[in-house]
């Protein structure tokens, strides 16, 4: 049950990929249904697996391993580990993936590389599912890189566009930076424990073994592996790839940049959570908080509908990472699940809007107006009622308004951060958390109002807008339903009584006692004492954000332009992503270019000089050596020959050729010997 089903879930998308990559041309017309069918079977199996897991084995993690490679005495095994975390994640990934498959049938209709697109979706789903079910770090790293390459392929799907191919490269390279750290972290653990399996590593650490014998290395290993999560989950300072990755098709953004790939980092942190020390967790929490704040502050001024969503994704990922860092493990993972649903919905909703806009602009032969710019929209509410209704639910969810799933998870995160600060005084974490909650509510409603409410900027354009086909709206409705509270907990104001909290429990820390973060019971005590206060505060702040958005964009009480002018450089900074790309360009690209110039100068002058010097030197040496050869060595050789010649000439004189002379010599010698001996 726990071998065959996960393997099937994993391999069905791979089968789709292989079929479509090799038989894409003949299957082209059916590739959508083939791929969607396979991933739907995976979804069905995942749901069965989850229900079975939660009802029959709720407290176990089931591991099955096969030996994979044996090198000397070292065996690397391929293992499948199904615990509640993995089972839930499987459903999330296959669900979002299959909805994106169906949505794409409408959105990607008539694309030049239709079957190729579905093939890559399959490859991506396969790699992502691999990350979820594996039981060891090496395989996770392999699938991790597969996710990297398939996201590269998907982001660069329209590679004829220069910006798309650049964005794909950027995503891949920035991810590689994080993966490099992750690989070093894995190797530190492997060198010390000679195993990649999570369980064995945790057992060794729990038994008191530390990498290289010091606690510092344990913190370092945890943070290095976290580097991988920083890259994949677009955390500060490697968050720059995600906004650019919006160049990919919108359903891909929904799949990769909302629900799966970026969630992989959070999932990784959740997997290695027991071995993280208090120091590592604190740094992780701060990185999450900084990411959440930076991304939210950028999102409030963006005009591209997908850019707003991209920055909001980064911001929400920051929340999740911060939640894990402060020890609100369940809340962080729950936010991952709820966010996957509503953010995938937001992206698909945006896709639906862009699709409609694009069709209208295409009919009007207008190729200059940007189909993604919210300033060109407005008043779409009545034209696209289903998209609007679902988008509203998603917006409410991400803003943390009660009765939605987002409220449940976000409230728990804020309470967790607050509780954490009461334990050790890091009050800046909840401060950022609440601030970002307000900003989130503000920029999401700004997006909603500018897109769907108000007056259209161009009447004739809006007249032509039509609601998207059912194949696109049904996934939206499913996701909207999943963004409501009752899927996660029957109590709309607290998740802790629901099945999710029962299924996912924060694992006990296994690091040495001195390095442990605040224990589970201590943390829960701190959280429950301020929970109600945090909840009321978060509702008030979210409501405040919504009200400000309405005041500025709906009722026009305050002019947005005047505000922007007053904010001055803050506004420009936010508008330009706080100049991260420019700074990175100057510092890293420029730095490397400068370095190459220095190296080139070094090459041309010093290395070449050295090489030429060596050549001259060699020339001189060979001249001397040649003279020695010619005069001394040859002289000796010729001298030897001449001596032999002369000696021969001398001895030849004895050879008279006359037998009697020889006889005389013989007798003479004989006589001499005779006399000498006697």
């Amino acid at each position, binding site marked *: 049950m726990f071998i065959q089903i996960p393997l099937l879930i994993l391999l069905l998308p791979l089968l789709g990929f292989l079929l479509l990559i090799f038989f894409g041309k003949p299957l082209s017309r059916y590739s959508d249904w083939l791929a969607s069918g396979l991933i739907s079977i995976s979804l069905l199996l995942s749901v069965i697996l989850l229900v079975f897991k939660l009802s029959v084995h709720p407290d176990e993690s089931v591991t099955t391993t096969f030996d994979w490679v044996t090198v000397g005495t070292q065996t690397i095994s391929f293992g499948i580990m199904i615990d509640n975390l993995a089972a839930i994640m499987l459903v999330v990934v296959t669900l979002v993936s299959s909805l994106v498959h169906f949505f794409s049938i409408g959105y990607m209709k008539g694309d030049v590389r239709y079957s190729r697109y579905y093939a890559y979706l399959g490859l991506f789903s396969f790699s992502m599912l691999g990350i979820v079910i594996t039981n060891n770090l090496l395989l996770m790293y392999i699938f991790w890189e597969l996710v990297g390459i398939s996201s590269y392929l998907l982001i660069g799907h329209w590679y004829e566009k220069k910006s798309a191919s650049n964005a794909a490269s950027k995503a891949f390279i920035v991810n590689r930076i994080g993966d490099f750290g992750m690989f070093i972290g894995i190797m530190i653990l492997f060198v010390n424990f000679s195993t990649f399996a999570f369980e064995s590593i945790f057992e060794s650490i729990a038994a008191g073994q530390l990498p290289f014998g010091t606690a510092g290395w344990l913190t370092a290993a945890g943070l290095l592996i976290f580097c991988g999560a920083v890259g994949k989950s677009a955390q500060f300072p490697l968050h720059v790839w995600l906004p650019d990755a919006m160049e990919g098709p919108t359903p891909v953004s929904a799949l990769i940049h909302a629900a799966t790939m970026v969630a992989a980092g959070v999932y990784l942190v959740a997997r290695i959570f027991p071995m993280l020390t208090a120091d590592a967790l604190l740094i992780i929490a701060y990185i999450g908080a900084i990411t959440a704040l930076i991304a939210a502050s950028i999102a409030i001024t963006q005009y591209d509908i997908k850019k707003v969503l991209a920055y909001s994704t980064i911001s929400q990922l920051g929340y999740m990472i911060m939640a894990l860092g402060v020890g609100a493990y369940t809340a962080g993972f729950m936010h991952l699940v709820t966010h996957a649903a509503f953010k995938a919905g937001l992206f698909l909703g945006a896709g639906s809007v862009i699709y409609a806009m694009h069709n209208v602009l295409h009919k009007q032969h207008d190729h200059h107006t940007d189909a993604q710019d919210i300033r060109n929209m407005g008043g779409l509410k009545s034209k696209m009622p289903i998209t609007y209704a679902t988008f509203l639910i998603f917006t409410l969810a991400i803003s943390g308004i009660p009765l939605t799933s987002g409220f449940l998870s976000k409230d728990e995160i804020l309470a967790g951060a607050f509780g954490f600060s009461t334990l050790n005084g890091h009050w800046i974490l909840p401060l950022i958390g609440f601030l970002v909650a307000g900003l989130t509510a503000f920029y999401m409603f700004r997006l909603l109002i500018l897109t769907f409410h108000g007056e259209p900027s161009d009447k004739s354009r809006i007249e032509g807008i039509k609601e998207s086909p059912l194949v696109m709206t049904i996934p939206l409705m499913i996701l909207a339903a999943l963004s409501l509270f009752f899927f996660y907990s029957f109590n709309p104001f607290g998740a802790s009584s629901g099945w999710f909290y029962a299924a996912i429990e924060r694992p006990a820390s296994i690091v040495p006692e001195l390095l442990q973060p605040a224990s589970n019971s201590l943390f829960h005590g701190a959280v429950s004492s301020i929970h109600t206060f945090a909840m009321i505060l978060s509702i008030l702040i979210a409501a405040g954000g919504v009200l400000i958005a309405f005041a500025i964009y709906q009722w026009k009480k305050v002019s947005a332009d005047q505000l922007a002018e007053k904010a001055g450089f803050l506004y420009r900074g936010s508008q330009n992503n706080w100049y991260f790309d420019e700074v990175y360009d100057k510092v890293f690209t420029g730095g490397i270019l400068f370095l190459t110039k220095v190296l080139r100068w070094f090459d041309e002058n010093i290395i070449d000089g050295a090489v030429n010097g060596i050549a001259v030197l060699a020339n001189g040496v060979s001249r001397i050596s040649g003279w020695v050869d010619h005069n001394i060595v040859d002289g000796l050789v010729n001298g030897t020959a001449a001596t032999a010649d002369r000696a021969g000439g001398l*001895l*030849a*004189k*004895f*050879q*008279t*050729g*006359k*037998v*009697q002379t020889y*006889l*005389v010599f013989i*007798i003479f010698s004989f006589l001499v010997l005779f006399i000498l001996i006697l």
Partner: protein
Amino acid sequence: MTEFSLIQWLAEPGLNHFLIVSAILFSLGLMAVLSKRNVIMVLMGVELILNSANINFIAFSRFTELQLDGHMIGLFVIIIAAAEAAVALAIVLNIFNRFNTVNLDDISSLKG
């Protein structure tokens, strides 16, 4: 010490007498080998040397305890001398065929 008397010494032939004869014969043979120009003469000198050796063998056989050993070797020498003469004459014939002379002074193609 008894006085040496030549007459008496000559009258009683012993080992030394034969050795002296043999030495004279050997010297004559050697002289012929070294000084004669004709190959045939040289060969005859060789025969003389062989025969001087034969005299030695027989003399030692007669005046020592060796009994017949000397006679046997003497017979061998005679036989070998015969064989040698046959081979040597064949060689001489070949030399004559090639050089058209048997004068040893003219045959010096081994000169270094």
